[in-house]
């Protein structure tokens, strides 16, 4: 120790050290608490939803086979039936088809932003995409209802309220998510990849197709999966354009329903604890399970990227 210091100096040093140590501890406490609260909230939602969601089967005595495999949904009837297959199919159809449409569009825009016109892309496209993200879903639904539905009815056919209308609305909604995350994935690639490819005499297109896209694939898939996670949870915008008919659609022009729209349509009218209310919680549990699966897929891709 430095014994030649004066007593007052020693005290000053000590207290500074102490306060540093204190603030270190406080900071640690704050971030630890924040992290744990997040974990606890997720766990609490999972536990609560699992418990409520399973009540359909062990309290209301609904057969899981009927629930998952039947399209006969009439919970308010004299002989109630609870086949939810139509809604499970509807949710998956909207999510998968819009992902298939959006993947090339979003990745293409991302390539344009990062590889073809980086400066222009950042200056113009980035803000445009950010605005698209910020528009509330009710606005998308409203535009869908007043513009898209009449357009489909007059130009394509049917009543306009259809699987197709909801796929278009959801595609526009998830496009910015997929684009931004794809652009991030491409931006993260080391510049050495590009310069080496050019040095070997490859054209820009060859570089993008043969070098950059394969290298960014885990990141691009993550972008599409997170877009799907947004699509499967969307309720409001879909509810306004899909028609909410409890029938399996025979074509893209037929109306149908999704799990989220059935929950929002009926939750307020049913009394807690009734079988009708319990099946809505079960639909919520299925949605949670699907988002767990999607997140696990993202984690899996993330782990592959590190290798």
């Amino acid at each position, binding site marked *: 120790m430095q014994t030649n210091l004066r007593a007052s100096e020693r005290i000053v040093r000590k207290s500074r050290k102490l306060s540093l140590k204190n603030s270190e501890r406080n900071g640690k406490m704050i971030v630890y608490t924040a992290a*744990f609260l997040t974990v606890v909230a997720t766990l*609490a939602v999972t*536990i609560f939803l699992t418990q409520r969601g399973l009540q359909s089967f062990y309290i209301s005595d609904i057969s899981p086979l009927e629930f998952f495999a039947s399209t006969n949904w009439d919970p308010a009837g004299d002989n109630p039936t609870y086949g939810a297959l139509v809604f499970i199919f509807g949710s998956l159809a909207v999510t998968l088809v819009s992902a298939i449409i959006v993947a090339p569009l979003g990745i293409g825009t991302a390539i344009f932003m990062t590889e073809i016109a980086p400066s222009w892309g950042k200056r113009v496209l980035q803000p445009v995409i950010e605005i698209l993200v910020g528009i509330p879903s009710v606005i998308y639904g409203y535009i869908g209802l007043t513009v898209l539905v009449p357009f489909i009815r007059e130009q394509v056919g049917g009543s306009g309220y259809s699987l197709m209308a909801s796929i278009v609305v959801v595609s526009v909604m998830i496009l910015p998510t997929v684009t931004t995350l794809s652009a991030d994935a491409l931006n993260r690639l080391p510049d050495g990849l590009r310069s080496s490819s050019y040095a070997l005499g490859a054209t820009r297109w060859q570089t993008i197709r043969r070098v950059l896209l394969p290298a960014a694939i885990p990141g691009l898939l993550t972008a599409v999966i997170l877009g799907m996670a947004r699509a499967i949870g969307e309720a409001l915008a879909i509810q306004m354009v899909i028609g909410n008919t409890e029938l399996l659609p025979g074509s893209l022009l037929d109306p149908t329903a999704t799990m989220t729209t059935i929950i929002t*349509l009926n939750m307020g009218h049913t*009394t807690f604890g009734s079988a009708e209310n319990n099946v809505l919680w079960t639909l919520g549990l299925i949605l949670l399970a699907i988002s767990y699966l999607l997140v696990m897929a993202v984690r899996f891709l993330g782990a592959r990227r590190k290798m």
Partner: protein
Amino acid sequence: MELKKQALIMVVAVVMLAVLAACGEDNGEETSEEADSTADDAEASDGESGSITIAGSSAMQPLVGAVAEVYQEENPEASIDVQAGGSGAGLSQVADGQVDIGNSDIFAEEEDEINADELVDHRVAVVGMGPVVHPDAGVEDLTQEELIDVWTGEITNWSELGGEDQEITLVNRPDSSGTRTTFVDFALEGEEPVEGITEDSSNTVRQIVSETPGAIAYLAFSYFDDSISSMSIDGVEPTAENVQTGDFPIWAYQHSYTSGEPEGLEADFLDYMMSDEIQDTLVPEQGYIPVTQMEVERDAEGEETPVE
């Protein structure tokens, strides 16, 4: 040492939150006890102060909200919180004691999960409903038989009813909706409608009918306007007068339920709701029919009798 302490705090936090999450319902009861005790306090001092919470039917929210506003202007000490959430939620919450008054479009007896004996029914208004169609359908009067044929899918084109050659598009409310139950019971004589487009919000239903050629739906009178045409049934027009005399069959009570006999602010507010001052002015202004003017009444089984 420090790490251990932090770990301990985390564990305590986790346990507390898990408990919170697990007993969400118990929590609700606690707050309701608080609400009850404030209501009791109010009774002890002055029947017109304190605070109550009202929740339930979104169809009733505009009316109850408007009455609460006027009431609070006259009684600045009172605080009345009016929330929507749906009839089912209103019944559940008043039965669980989470709110003081639960609003519902349907009789509590119609919900199996609700112990209706413990609830006291206050019928604060009547709402009339009628079929509405796109203005170009060319049909404005139907017999009840024809109406049932349209909703059960027997008739699928307006030309079969003397209207335009246009396919009929049905616009339903969700299975569990009180408006749908009323329409099915009193317009369709219990026949379930076939599948059609389904929307919950009356505003959206009105917009869909006004924009979709050949569309038919049912709406409360308060949503009638020039963008859609309302229909007569068996020549009887959907008007407040025809509902009051019992000639027009599609109507429902707006119920305010309390758990047990109302006391204090609850009782005072419900009395105010039933006063001529409100029933003759605010109720019709908001598009509802005064319950005090009804010449017929109805019980939970749908049996209609003249008012004595």
